[in-house]
């Protein structure tokens, strides 16, 4: 695309060849009208308002459908063109209900004013409305459609199809009767999942959101704040509209990475929790077994006193902290600093231990970094996507839009999952292995790849430690995994194994997206080793659009570990045992290095075991809810009871807060400044939109106060930026990032200095290991210890759904999300249901060795016979009452995905009975 010059109405414009003419004109303040054009969708040419004359062409041309060429001479405004535009607008007025309640921005209305269209006169001369029966559809929980305001511009249809890849919306009927339908007619019966792309892209308010619609006028909002979504790890950029200190609407920020305006249902409608009346507004102190309102002074003094006493009586190692993937980097950084300098221990961990610890462990050992190697945009442009144990459409909905868009460009998608996921609809191949057989499956694929000679010898020689010798070991070790044997173990047919292996290995570029399905097993680390082995021998890493990515479940899982919320790493993944680094950090923190613990601390589940055994006496829980998220909850509950002193700092009174001696009210993402790091290592700004409720405090402000009262004061941080400045000093990979640099768009680490643009793809030159080479780790398949038995004949799998998030503390406090999904369920294969004489909707009791719960049965062939699935978000049916705390020896992750169970019908109950 070379620079060219064109002329529009005599004005010479420099631009790039091939750019869209309407875009070019508007960028140069030549405001050609147009309603159907939107920069994020393909040109439609439906409204005909942007017609222009181009020299050398007989007929009028729509500017939105033209690519500019050198020397193009364009007339954008003359009497004839303007007369046509006026006529078109009159026609739209004739067809429409142009009443507008002021709750949305109406682009048609803007044009009516600009062209001074006499609405009454138009209605007198052209009477079309009376001939049309306008359809309305209010059936969706989150939006409503009114055809009388719809100009059939196709923006919503294209938004749904081209941007989100969902293909729910279409035009129905033709001519004047044409209108939008969802699915086959009714919105609530369609596959619409409520992402609201159509709302954001609609120019006339024909599709509008229901929540808070009546609460404000669009031109009277108090402020609009750009920030980062608090749900999953995509890091979508949100624009929050605020009225009377309440968030009243959320839109995606247009044209900014990583989401480019797209959102999912949680990002758009999941903000209500911020204004929930259930928010914690005052500190609470347990007195005589009851938590009572207290002042901050009282609470902080008590905490300082009790933690100090534990440290003095039992030593630093009797204290621990649970950090939070929901908090900002600044919060997490100061929390780990607090644990390391005030508690003086490395006993700090958080929920990453329970999601991707095995992935990160394997990745760090094999390739030197635990973070995703690619940019989210690469999910669209790579040739092959291998999605394993990752329900990407439900857990990372916006990343999934990139995958789906790639599909329309002809990319191949392989899904590997024991349970059906929505991505299967888009997949070329679906491998459905039995639960817990991943190593066999992946070794089998490696075997096929080697047999077919599809391994990349040059890559192995140049980039893998010990080159071909290491490869030989792997070859020998996987040689027994013949397709037939693997088919026997996994249940995946030989032809599918061969097709998947061939497509992956022979692709020009392939990206792996791995998830909890692979990581949350006793063999989690080995699973990921096998996966990385396959990637390394095929050379599907170390180049653009190739690599391995574990999309992060929570908004700031990536950032929390990046800034050191880890028992083994200081900020920047530098081991706690690294003396030189401790010396460097001690200097920044202005403390003697001897005060810093040089031994790794305890991990999440180990902490609970130690507490159970009486070794941990006090814990500070920051924005985590282990009473839902930990495995073997009955054990966790007992561990909490046995501790001397428990502090929980959160925004809601969680299941864990109920176990606390002191509860501190904190601020939500919308009430604080700071940064999050998303799944593709992008450091993104979080900005304050509303004031916190009651007396809730910023997390890091609480930490500073407590550090003071415990006699180890932090320097005075003026604001979150000051904290970030300190983070940069101790975290080499973030050293080049400043608030100023990420004002508009995030930057991907590593970014070692201020001139560095950030890094989109990792490992293009070298791996982050000591010698720069990747390491193969041949692993063998070991059958799972947890097996179905006569007593527990089923294997239960657990996972997430689109509408809820983590322990649901935030998501369940949104009417919109609850309207879609508010009740737990258990998926069972029809054959098993028949055998056990169970019917859809039955109330069932599920028992495991660890515990029991009650839920409702859904019969579905999404699972294999003998296997079950449950979403784990719901506090009324806590899946982790059933799971085990047997750990993966390398990463200490727990096997949430594999629990032997028994299911029996029980007395029918309603949801309210469980609450």
């Amino acid at each position, binding site marked *: 695309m070379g620079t060219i010059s064109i002329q529009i109405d005599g004005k010479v414009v420099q631009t790039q060849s091939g750019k869209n003419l309407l875009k070019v004109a508007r960028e140069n303040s030549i405001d050609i009208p147009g309603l159907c054009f939107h920069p994020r969708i393909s040109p439609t040419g*439906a409204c*005909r308002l942007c*017609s222009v004359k181009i020299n050398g062409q007989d007929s009028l041309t729509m500017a939105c459908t033209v690519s500019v060429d050198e020397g193009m001479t364009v007339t954008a405004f003359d009497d004839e063109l303007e007369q046509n535009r006026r006529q*078109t607008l009159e026609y739209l007025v004739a067809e429409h209900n142009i009443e507008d309640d002021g709750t949305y921005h109406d682009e048609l209305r803007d044009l009516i004013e600009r062209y001074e269209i006499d609405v009454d006169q138009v209605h007198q001369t*052209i*009477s079309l409305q009376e001939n049309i029966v306008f359809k309305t559809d209010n059936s969706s929980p989150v939006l409503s459609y009114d055809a009388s305001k719809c100009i059939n511009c196709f923006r919503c249809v294209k938004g749904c199809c081209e941007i989100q890849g969902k293909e729910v919306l279409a*035009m129905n*009927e033709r*001519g*004047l009767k044409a209108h939008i339908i969802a699915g086959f007619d009714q919105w609530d019966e369609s596959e619409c999942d409520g992402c609201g792309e159509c709302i954001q892209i609609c120019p006339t308010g024909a599709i509008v959101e229901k929540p808070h619609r009546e609460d404000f006028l669009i031109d009277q909002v108090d402020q609009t704040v750009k920030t980062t979504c608090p749900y999953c790890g995509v890091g979508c950029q949100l624009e929050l509209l605020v009225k009377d200190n309440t968030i009243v609407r959320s839109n995606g920020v247009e044209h900014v990475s990583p989401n480019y305006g797209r959102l999912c249902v949680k990002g758009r409608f999941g903000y209500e929790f911020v204004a929930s009346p259930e928010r914690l507004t005052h500190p609470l102190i347990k007195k005589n077994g009851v938590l009572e309102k207290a002042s901050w002074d009282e609470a902080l003094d008590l905490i300082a006193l009790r933690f100090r006493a534990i440290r003095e009586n039992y030593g630093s190692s009797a204290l621990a902290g649970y950090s939070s993937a929901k908090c900002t980097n600044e919060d997490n950084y100061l929390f780990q600093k607090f644990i390391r300098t005030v508690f003086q221990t490395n006993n700090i961990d958080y929920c990453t231990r329970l999601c991707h610890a095995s992935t990160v462990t394997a990745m760090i050992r094999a390739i030197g970094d635990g973070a995703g190697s690619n940019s989210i945009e690469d999910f669209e442009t790579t040739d092959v996507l291998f999605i394993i144990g990752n329900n990407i459409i439900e857990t990372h909905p916006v990343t999934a839009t990139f995958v789906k868009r790639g599909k329309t460009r002809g990319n191949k998608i392989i899904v590997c999952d024991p349970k059906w996921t929505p991505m299967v609809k888009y997949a070329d191949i679906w491998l459905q292995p039995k639960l817990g057989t991943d190593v066999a499956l992946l070794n089998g694929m490696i075997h096929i790849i080697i047999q077919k000679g599809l391994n990349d010898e040059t890559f192995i020689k140049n980039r893998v430690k010990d080159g071909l010798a290491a490869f030989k070991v792997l070859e020998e070790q996987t040689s027994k995994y013949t397709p037939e044997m693997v088919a026997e173990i996994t249940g995946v047919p030989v032809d599918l194994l061969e097709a998947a292996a061939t497509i992956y290995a022979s692709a020009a570029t392939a990206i792996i997206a791995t998830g909890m399905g692979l990581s949350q097993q006793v063999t989690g680390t080995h699973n990921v080793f096998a996966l990385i082995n396959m990637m390394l021998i095929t050379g599907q890493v170390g180049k653009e659009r190739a690599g391995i990515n574990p999309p992060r479940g929570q908004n700031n899982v990536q950032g929390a570990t990046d800034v050191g919320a880890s028992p083994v790493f200081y900020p920047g993944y530098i081991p706690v045992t690294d003396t030189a680094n401790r010396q460097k950090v001690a200097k920044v923190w202005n403390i003697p290095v001897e005060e810093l613990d040089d031994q790794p601390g305890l991990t999440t589940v180990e902490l609970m075991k130690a507490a159970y055994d009486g070794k941990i006496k006090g814990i500070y829980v920051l924005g985590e809810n282990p009473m839902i998220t930990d495995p073997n909850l009955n054990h966790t509950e007992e561990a909490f009871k046995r501790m001397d002193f428990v502090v929980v700092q959160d925004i809601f009174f969680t299941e864990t807060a109920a176990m606390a001696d002191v509860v501190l009210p904190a601020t939500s993402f919308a009430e604080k400044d700071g940064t999050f790091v998303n799944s593709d290592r992008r450091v993104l700004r979080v900005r304050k939109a509303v004031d916190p409720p009651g007396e809730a405090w910023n997390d890091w402000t609480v930490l500073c106060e407590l550090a003071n009262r415990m006699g180890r004061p932090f320097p005075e941080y003026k604001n979150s930026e000051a904290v970030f400045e300190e983070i940069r000093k101790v975290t080499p990979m973030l050293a080049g990032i400043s608030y100023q640099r990420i004002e508009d768009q995030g930057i991907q680490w590593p970014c070692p200095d201020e001139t560095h643009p950030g890094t989109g793809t990792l490992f293009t030159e070298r791996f982050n290991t000591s010698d720069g080479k990747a390491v193969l780790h041949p692993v063998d398949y070991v059958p799972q210890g947890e097996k179905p038995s006569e007593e527990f004949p089923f294997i239960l799998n657990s996972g997430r759904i689109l509408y809820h998030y983590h322990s649901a503390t935030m998501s369940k406090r949104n009417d919109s999300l609850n309207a879609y999904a508010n009740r737990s369920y258990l998926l069972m294969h029809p054959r098993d249901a028949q055998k056990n004489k169970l019917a859809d909707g039955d109330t069932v009791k599920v028992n495991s060795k660890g515990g029991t719960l009650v839920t409702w049965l859904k019969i579905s062939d999404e699972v294999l016979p003998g296997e079950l699935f449950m979403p784990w978000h719901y506090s009324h049916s806590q899946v982790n009452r059933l799971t085990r705390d047997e750990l993966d020896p390398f990463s200490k992750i727990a096997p949430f995905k594999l629990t032997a169970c028994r299911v029996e019908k029980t007395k029918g109950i309603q949801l309210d009975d469980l609450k």
Partner: protein
Amino acid sequence: MIKETRITLKNVRKINPEKIEEYIKAGGYLALQKALTQKPETIIDEMLQSSLRGRGGAGFSTGLKEKFTSDACKTCTDRFIVCNADEGEPGTFKDRIIMERDPHLLIEGIIIAGYSIGATRAYIYIRGEYYQSIKRVELAVKQAKKAGYIGQNILGSGYSLDVEIRLGAGSYLCGEELTLLESLEGKQGYPRVKPPFPAEKGLFGLPTLVNNVETLATIPAIVEKGAKWYLTLGSKDSPGTKIFTLSGDVEKPGYYEVEMGASLRALIYDLGGGIKDGGTFKAALLGGAAGTFVDQSVLDTPMSYDLLKEKGAVLGSGAIIVISESRSLPEMTRSILDFFKHESCGKCVPCRIGTAHLVQMFQELTTKTSETKPTLDDMINKAEYMSKTSLCPLGQSPILPLQSLKQYFSNQF
């Protein structure tokens, strides 16, 4: 007295259309055999020299279209030929006759044209209501496959072509070539923005030749007998033959293939047997709804693309709807305007609302008595705006009948 000159209709009612042997016996598939021994460029050259113009209605040079498609995207591994058999223009039924009575001629034309542009796959998009056409073409494709005219390595030439039949679902607009391609791709029948033209980016974004049934059915004869022979037929500006379909107030309605340049009078009186029940000629609607009305002053004008144009008329698809003195032109006009309103897909504003507005205006024009009622000129104004700003030929068409009414019959409104 003129006589028919049958090229595309040569086998009609002479052979059994369900028997490939009869087609072959009548000289069928010889042109294909000849074509496959020639270079593709040679065939395109022959088409260019023959001056054959598209018989669907737009009259674009067939040879040029082939050349553009053949030259487009040399790196593309696939290119397509699409036969537009979605015959929907009111008063037009020529393609139906070819498909029902001589389907192999169409198939032979498709294979030759496909070979000339290097098509890897052919689609025949047939109007869904054409039950008999669908049945006959399906059978013919089956037979041609079995006989080795379709499929891998046709007649040992190394050229391979698959032919697939797809059905329309009742939309007039899907006969418009770009809308047809959308429909073929499995999408809703909405017109595409042009350019790019199908030759460059057609079906699934690949180079595509879209031709009408009659056009394709003409190709075997030109290949067999040469462009020179073809040029001896018809008139200078419009060589060859054309099928005209006579309907309305005429004694012998039907299909007639004549040399281009025959007069309307000859068609109606010599071949059609004159006005029905001894009535008087009042008007003819040429080219269907998207066509033009003419009066008796055009009766002796040779029917050719350019000469009709001089008279403000179009040849179009070859439809001739004859209107006797007993008919009301306003009634016919109303029905045409209703037709456009009914068939407008609604994608672009000028057509969606304009076609409805024209109906409203015409209602007022014919019923209102006040001075504020719209005039034919007012309607032509709107139709002109529509023709300039509409996305596809549908919205661009109402101007044609309206303008011709003003030219020839302004006294009737």
